[in-house]
């Protein structure tokens, strides 16, 4: 038996971790990049009438309607995204998309980065234009998840966990997110709100009950927002009680706290400044991009110091081991990079809305904290006060601060669906329409339009938080 270090000993390893520099990117070069148009198919359980190529074409053609002067030969190249070769059962499917769209022989590459595939595709297209390699780049992505039965689909997704150490234990992403939120509740609810409850089991049960109700509030918010989004897969007038009482999938995550499998495609057209002026009188500037990563396995996450936002202090987190399994360091790193690039100091003040990757109601709450919308540990209170809700919508409950910091006005993944390779691009399309102030025109109702939206963020997230992208979009037109 080898000797073990003392419990809780500050090993040199931890010090090395704590010294990890925060991402810094304010000096980034490159050209200004603008989004001129976006399009998408409705997200659905299945689209039997369209294969992946036709879905991509429909999304692309819809985007082109907004830029009638942009001809096919203006597209200098593409970045094409889909997550899983297992769902496609067609290797080099991206080549078939390129082919179907009539864009040969221009440059193209397939982008895959787990759940963040769409967000990475957006940033890859940004890079193509920012670098000067292209003046106009199409980012298009899809997923066709209806091709297998739901539980088989869950197995494909779980193959995006370590197949030596994680998958054979019962590979199931809802299970992994449940592990993370149980610890999140322990750190931030058990140790605070229920600190005085002596019996450990009872204290933890009460903490989870409290957190479950807050997660159900998030699910209600997103499903009810989606009532006004015609592209959403599962809009519904969900009641808090029904969300709470929906079937348990992995404790403490019930059915309504979890996104679904979907078929769908989304497309985004990015241009240089010169081209953007030529094609569009209301382009949106991609003001900042950021990407962060973390260990593939939850079990390898360090217990170190928080990567601080400009509006936070180390003394806010004296007793917090970070990120552990309760927070997403990749999301924090991506946010820091994107905020630095865009010159954002306080996201609550500088962003009018956020479309974030709510694969689970729990991860939406964890992500508020990673993105600095509230401090670590304040995510539940942020929801209870109503900050991420929209003003003027009926949620069947009291949300006093609705409109303070709208999150997922579109309905997010929970209500829109999650065709993985399209999801991050879907967020860009919705954000684009928000910033063009065109939600009324595009959705047939302006109930989801954030008044005077000038700047928004999109957030795309992979694995158990193994990679995350954040991009900042800004309205240019006065």
């Amino acid at each position, binding site marked *: *038996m*080898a000797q*073990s*270090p*003392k*419990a809780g*000993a500050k*090993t*040199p*390893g*931890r010090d*090395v971790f704590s010294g990890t520099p925060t991402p810094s990117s304010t000096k980034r070069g490159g050209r200004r990049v603008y989004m001129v148009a976006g399009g998408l198919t409705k997200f659905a*359980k*299945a689209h*039997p*009438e369209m294969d992946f190529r036709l879905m991509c074409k429909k999304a692309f053609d819809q985007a082109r309607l907004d830029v009638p002067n942009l001809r096919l030969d203006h597209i200098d190249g593409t970045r094409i995204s889909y997550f899983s070769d297992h769902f496609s*059962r067609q290797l080099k499917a991206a080549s078939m998309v390129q082919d179907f769209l009539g864009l040969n022989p221009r440059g193209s590459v397939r982008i895959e980065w787990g759940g963040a595939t769409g967000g990475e595709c957006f940033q890859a297209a940004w890079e193509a234009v920012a670098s000067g390699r292209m003046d106009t780049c199409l980012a298009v992505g899809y997923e066709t998840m209806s091709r297998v*039965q739901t*539980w*088989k689909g*869950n*197995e494909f*997704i*779980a193959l995006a966990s370590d*197949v*030596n*150490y*994680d998958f*054979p*234990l*019962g*590979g*199931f992403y*809802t*299970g*992994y997110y*449940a*592990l*993370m939120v*149980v*610890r999140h509740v*322990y750190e931030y609810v*058990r140790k605070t709100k229920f600190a005085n409850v002596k019996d*450990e*089991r009872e204290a*933890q049960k009460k903490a989870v009950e409290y957190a479950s109700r807050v997660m159900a509030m998030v699910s209600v918010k997103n499903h009810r927002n989606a009532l006004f989004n015609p592209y959403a897969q599962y809009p519904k007038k969900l009641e808090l009680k029904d969300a709470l009482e929906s*079937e*348990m*999938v*992995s*404790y403490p995550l019930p059915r309504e706290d979890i996104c679904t499998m979907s078929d769908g495609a989304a497309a985004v057209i990015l241009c240089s400044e010169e081209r953007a002026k030529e094609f569009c009188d209301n382009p949106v500037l991609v003001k900042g991009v950021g990407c962060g990563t973390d*260990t593939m*396995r*939850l*079990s*390898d*996450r*360090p*217990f170190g110091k928080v990567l601080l936002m400009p509006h936070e202090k180390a003394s806010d987190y004296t007793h917090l081991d970070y990120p552990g*399994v309760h927070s997403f360091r990749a999301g924090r790193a991506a946010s820091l990079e994107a905020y630095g690039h865009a010159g954002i100091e306080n996201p609550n003040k500088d962003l009018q809305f956020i479309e974030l990757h709510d694969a689970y109601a729990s991860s939406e709450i964890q992500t508020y904290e990673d993105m600095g919308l509230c401090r670590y540990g304040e995510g539940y209170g942020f929801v209870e006060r109503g900050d991420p809700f929209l003003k003027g919508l009926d949620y069947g409950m009291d949300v006093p601060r609705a409109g303070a910091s709208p999150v997922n006005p579109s309905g997010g993944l929970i209500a829109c669906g999650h065709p993985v390779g399209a999801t991050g691009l879907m967020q860009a399309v919705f954000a684009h329409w928000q910033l063009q102030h065109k939600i009324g025109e595009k959705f047939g109702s302006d109930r989801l339009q954030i008044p005077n939206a000038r700047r928004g963020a999109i957030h795309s997230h992979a694995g158990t938080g193994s990679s995350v992208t954040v991009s900042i979009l800004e309205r240019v037109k006065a």
Partner: protein
Amino acid sequence: MTGENMAKPQSGGKAKLRRTQKFTEVQETLQKEGAAIFVDKQGTENLYIDFPYHVNYLHSYAQDTPFFLGLAEGRLRGTRCESCQYTYATPRTYCQFCGGPAGWVDLPLKGKVHSWTTCHYGSEAFLKETPYNLVLVEFEGVNSILLSRLKACTEEQIYVGMPLVAKFASKPKYLITDVWFEPAPGAI
């Protein structure tokens, strides 16, 4: 693609495929007949075929081999960085902080629940095992944690901090499931 799952040709010309307007019936029909026509709301016909895909991988554990051989001997082996001493419960053969080599060490066979869940559903491969408990185990003096199954207790009994003991399969399958955890005596 293999031939046996394809639609069987009908004698006398045109194949008579089952038509369905319920998407839920497509899969069921494919399993029986190998092909089906889904008629959507617009009346458009969409031909579906069954498309099986089976693979047997030659999967080497490579540098992680000592961990899995260790399980077969009732040993739980982690690694420790030779330069910075960071100790991994889930082995990494090179340190994630300093990049140096990490050597094998035996982990204690006792730990505590760091976090847990009970899965009432799972991937297809594990559906028949539901409900099952997943647990992240922390060990005294070890910097990182280990994902495992938690057995011999009910969902209501589990809590963060519960003391655990490791158990090993008598007949190893050389999978991570060769080790699991149970509540320590007196913990429940």
